[in-house]
């Protein structure tokens, strides 16, 4: 004889079945996607190995000359690992990159520039006009920048233009406050480096952390992940991909 209780229990069991089915489905999909992540991670690692060891021939003949100026943004906490920064710069030297701008917002790398230049045998400090100089195969020019070269530098440049305006007299704002004059004023206050072609961001956040905004109009920006997990293969791939890019500059 079927009792009310047994009917209620059966109903409850039947009602639970869709939730159970959903949970199983959730688990299965979660498992599949986790496997996918693992496979992707392995594929990444394999690709990095193949690139680093030279098995992928297309990365052998990178047209590094197209990369006139490379910028590296490092999270200031990561920047404390000077050895990592040195390793990265050594890789760039091996690849043949000639001009590098190193940035971290707190200026950790700037404070360590003597150590970095000393430890890299063929590096010299950037001076204005260096971007046009012809360098031998081993030398790399390094510019060290921080927050003071970003918005703070624009403030100093604005102040400089204001002083020039005062000396010229009234109603000369249109002549003084132009983009060309601002660029000159930034050079005059010591923050007039060239616009990077490529900017690599090493850090957890996918933003450029205050890199000098005036210089970022057409810069390609690539997020590389934390400095801790930097890989030679990824670096080479980013530079290779940059050499394939064709820009219209809005036209």
């Amino acid at each position, binding site marked *: 004889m079927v009792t009310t209780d047994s009917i209620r229990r059966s109903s409850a069991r039947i009602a639970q079945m869709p*939730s159970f089915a*959903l949970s199983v*489905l*959730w688990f299965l*999909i*979660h498992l599949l*996607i*986790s496997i*996918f*992540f693992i496979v*992707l991670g392995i594929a990444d690692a394999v690709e990095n190995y193949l690139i680093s060891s030279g098995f992928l021939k297309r990365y052998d003949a990178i047209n590094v000359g197209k990369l006139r100026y490379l910028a590296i943004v490092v999270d200031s906490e990561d920047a404390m690992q000077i050895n990592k920064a040195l390793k990265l710069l050594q890789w760039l030297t091996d690849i043949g990159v000639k001009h590098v701008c190193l940035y971290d917002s707190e200026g950790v790398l700037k404070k360590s520039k003597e150590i970095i230049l000393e430890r890299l045998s063929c590096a010299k400090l950037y001076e204005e006009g260096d971007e046009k100089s012809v360098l031998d195969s081993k030398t790399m020019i390094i510019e060290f920048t921080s927050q003071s070269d*970003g*918005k*703070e530098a*624009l*403030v100093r440049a*604005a*102040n400089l*233009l*204001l*002083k020039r*305006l005062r000396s010229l007299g*009234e109603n000369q*704002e*249109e002549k*003084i*406050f*132009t*983009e060309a004059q*601002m660029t000159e004023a930034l050079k005059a206050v010591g923050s007039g480096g060239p616009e990077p072609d490529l900017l690599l961001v090493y850090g*957890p*956040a*996918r*933003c*450029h*952390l*205050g*890199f000098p*905004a*005036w210089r*970022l*109009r*057409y*810069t*390609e*920006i*690539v*997020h*590389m*992940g934390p400095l801790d997990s930097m*890989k030679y293969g*990824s*670096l080479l*791939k*980013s530079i290779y991909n940059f050499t394939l890019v064709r*820009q219209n*500059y*809005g*036209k």
Partner: protein
Amino acid sequence: MLPLRSSVSLEKKLLSFSRNSCPSTITQSLLFPSHGRLVQLKTAVSATGVAHREDDKGVNTGTASTWDLSEPEPLPPGLLRELMPRHVAVVMDGNARWARRRGLPASSGHEAGVQSLRELIELCVKWGIRVLTVFAFSSENWFRPKGEVDFLMGLFERVMESELQNIHRQGVQISTIGDSSKLPKSLQKLLSRAEQYTKDNSQLHMIVAISYSGRSDITQACKRIARKVKDGVICLEDIDEKLIEGELETSFSDFPSPDLLIRTSGELRLSNFLLWQLAYTELFFAQTLWPDFRKTEFVEALHSFQQRQRRYGSRNS
């Protein structure tokens, strides 16, 4: 390397999710797709493990020309309201390429792009995003073929005329930034009328950057400061970052600096857009061309943004 690109097809979507999400986020997105084929959702577990109830009533994400003015839409599974960006900026790139791939003229691509913008505005209103800045036309775009430029100016006028009432009904306030003196007089008048007409709206502040240049924005801000110094309103010694920020074209906004920038079409650069304002903005570069950028892709960008906020906290912009 964690590339910033993502794509539309499922295979490429999983690839991009692997860059930007975790298994939990993907699982719930697949089980409870944002296109909403499920009529009722019992429970959704967010990536943080917080359980909450939602009703997903199957949202129409088609390309209808009418605006969907239905009730406020709950957020898709996995998105947390408290982590939504307040200000989203978008570089709407890829219209011409989209048209070329289909053997159509560039004008068709631009027209198709209007649909994407319409949908994005609706979603921003429904999901409580406060400011949306769209890069409609840069100062460099004036160098494009005259025919294309004239078409674009005409398109802006047509769209503004036809959509103004709908935009106003949604509570969207329109503002424009950029050098409007170069625009056709009729468009200047129309934009001015639209700004006046919608000035009291508060659901969403849409800033249209037209004939805009980030460098010019900074230069003009400094020029305005110079005039204030000349007029004795401020002293030379008072010039600092805040003062310049206060004179930028976006300074009228409640949230002048974007939390999230989305650029479509796979290009990885800012193209002279909001240079000062983007210092600490999360950058999301999508492989999708702008006419194909719809709700799914927007949700993906928001997931990616929120994931980073959960892991690393928000940054001061």
